């Protein structure tokens, strides 16, 4: 499925697995902000190609393996 800006890939969180450690928002502040309880809010519109590298890093760093890239 294509996001609003036409990017095929998108970030997704398994909110059951997520523990709100917040590393993802530090690595990828362009697309991930934290809510008032520390849980990630993913920006709409999909994953732009220029942020793919950072996104991959965020996925690898998540200690709960809760973040993934869906294509």
């Amino acid at each position, binding site marked *: 499925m294509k996001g609003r800006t036409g990017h095929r890939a998108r970030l997704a969180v398994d*909110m*059951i697995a997520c*523990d709100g450690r917040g590393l993802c928002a530090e690595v990828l502040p362009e697309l991930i902000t934290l*809510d*008032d*309880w520390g*849980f990630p*809010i993913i920006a709409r519109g999909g994953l732009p190609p220029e942020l793919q590298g950072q996104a991959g890093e965020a996925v690898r760093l998540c200690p709960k393996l809760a973040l993934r890239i869906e294509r």
Partner: protein
Amino acid sequence: MDWGAIDSGGQRSAAGWQRRESRHRQDPAGPRPARPPGQLPRLLPDGFTDEPTHLGEHLARHGPLPAWGGALRWREELIAEVELAGLAGRGGAGFPTAKKLAAVASSGRRAVVVANGTEGEPISAKDKVLLAQAPHLVLDGAVVAAALVGANEAIIVAHSAVSDIVKAAVVERRRARADRIRLRVVPAADQFVAGESSAVVHWIERGIPKPMATRQRLSVSGLNGRPTLVQNVETLAHLALIARHGADWFRAVGTAREPGSMLVTLAGAVRWPGVYEIAIGTPVREVLGRAGGPSVPLSALLIGGYFGSWVDAEAAAALPFSTEGLAPVGGNVGAGLVAALPASACGLVETARVTRYLAGESAGQCGPCVFGLDAVAGQLERLADGRGASLGLLHRWIGQLRSGRGACKHPDGTIGMVRSALEVFSAEIDLHAEGWCTGTTEAGVIPVPAWSQS
């Protein structure tokens, strides 16, 4: 849980749920000719009854299901007929039934059907009444659905108040060798989120009534990895009638976009609270009229369910009871609940109570739901009590929680209801800020279980 609160004097008395023992009643008129398509009720028995319809009576009224040989062509034709009928799910989400059927049918693997009669919402009663009064129509629908998607088993998850009635109906069918499909009844978990599709599958599979973090659709991989059709019990009852009478018959009532009849639970300040069957598109005023109309002057209606919307009673009165018709006031038919709020009650107090209940009913799996709904409920309680809530915080949190923040739609549904309350009761919010409350009746017009209010 006090079910009596909503059904005292109701036409479709819920007292019948408890009464399992019953005599077999023969229809004195014998088999009836096909009923006119416009005639209601379609699903519920005619007139007052608090006994389940037995197999003989059921067949006398509706006739037998059409015979099929499991042929692929029959399956395709009936799914096409369901699409023509425009049947949409009656569990709250309103998803087109034909699409769901086709998705599961196309898997090519042995599928399974789950008839969802969990109805975890405290004041909704339509699925319980349907299962208690017309269990065979639901079972017919489950059997038809199973044949359509290539399943040899259908599991009926029924609210524990009515599961024995459904079990008895299954035994009756087994004795009559009515079906080639295995029917199994599982008493539902009595929790709000237990009715969510993946939670129902989780409950059957592992006895845990919580939504799952499903990456694949249930139609691809559901119960024990099998393609799974989860369908509300009322939807299946309509399917059983479409299989008999076809799409044109089904569309004879309802609106062009939302055809057919639907069951509604009318609760709160109406004369005879209970479950009624209406044509979709009936003006809201007439829908309330089925329950004898308002028992006192009203200020607002909670439409759709606890995940529904508050709407101004006067603005809604002339609108058609359909998702299209209610759109101008931000409502949708949801799971068919209408709860009427007396003008003497405070909408903010009621909203705070319902929100606190919903926050407590979180499955406790996702952070935004656990912490966010609790925080929102807390601010609403301050608002209701006149303790000086921060509307800014409330709106900030609503923005953070409004869409897609959980594994299921529990936060989305709760926040949607809260947003509507802040709009509809905006005048009351201003008054509360000044230390006034217009409410003169005791809180609790919209019932929630006692445990949630401590």
